[in-house]
């Protein structure tokens, strides 16, 4: 998984979806809707345990955390990125990518 996938947008947030208990087909459907809204093509998704964010914060001493940001339902953002320190952002993104599994769209 490329760390770049997790790097924050210029507003300092990485957009994520809470998928615990959500059927796989519904996850893909939601992702597809989000991609369409942005005129993007969906190729894959990166799944990772929510506790990874806290573990990463501890390991890197960067206070990243997840905050709910609905709508859309189950949407959240990873916030707390050090926007003035690119090298620290890269380190955090690597840690998150390490815990993620890639699911390709069929």
């Amino acid at each position, binding site marked *: 998984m*490329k*760390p*770049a*996938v*997790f*790097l*924050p*947008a*210029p*507003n300092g947030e*990485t*957009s*994520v*979806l*809470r*998928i615990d208990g959500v059927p796989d087909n519904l*996850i893909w459907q939601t*992702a597809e809707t*989000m*991609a369409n*809204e*942005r*005129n*993007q*093509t*969906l*190729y*894959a*998704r*990166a*799944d*990772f*345990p*929510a506790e*990874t*964010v806290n573990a990463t914060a501890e*390991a*890197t001493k960067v206070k990243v955390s*997840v905050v709910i940001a609905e709508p859309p339902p189950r949407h*959240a953002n990873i916030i707390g990125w050090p926007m003035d*320190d*690119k*090298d*620290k*952002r*890269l*380190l955090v*993104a*690597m*840690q998150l990518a*390490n815990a993620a599994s*890639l699911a390709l769209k069929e």
Partner: protein
Amino acid sequence: MSTIVLSRPSRGVFHTQASNGISDEAKTLWQSMAELQNSFLTSFSIGKPKRDVLESTTEVFEESCHPDWDGYSAAPVSFETYLKAKKFLSALPTNLPTPEVSAHPDGQIGFEWFVAPNRQFVMGISSEDELAYAGIFGINKTSGVELFIDEIPKAVLEGIRRLF
């Protein structure tokens, strides 16, 4: 949780660095060296990895040179950043593996060397004269920012070499 996905001390054969010479001889020598390096890159077996990564860099630039290229308000990758990335790749010693390329939401071009989850090195390059990098080497982690004008900073080269 889910997010969508849209060492050896040698510097390699024909490693070049900027010439400070101003005489005609120095200029001629520098030009000859550059021509030699170009001819080396056209060698199919040796130059191919570098040609491939240069091509990937061009593709990444073309896909991300406009604002909001990722649908999340990403900054565009500027032509200056693209040139800087190509400069970095040209300066990368030929005995080091070439990286994977991606665009970053802040408009930088990213290079990644991945061996395993606990052995990887990433960096971001912008139009500025700075390189930001981070590496994971087992239980050790490193990150920093270095000046990049003509030569690849020592800390970055050491970080890449440490993986292989």
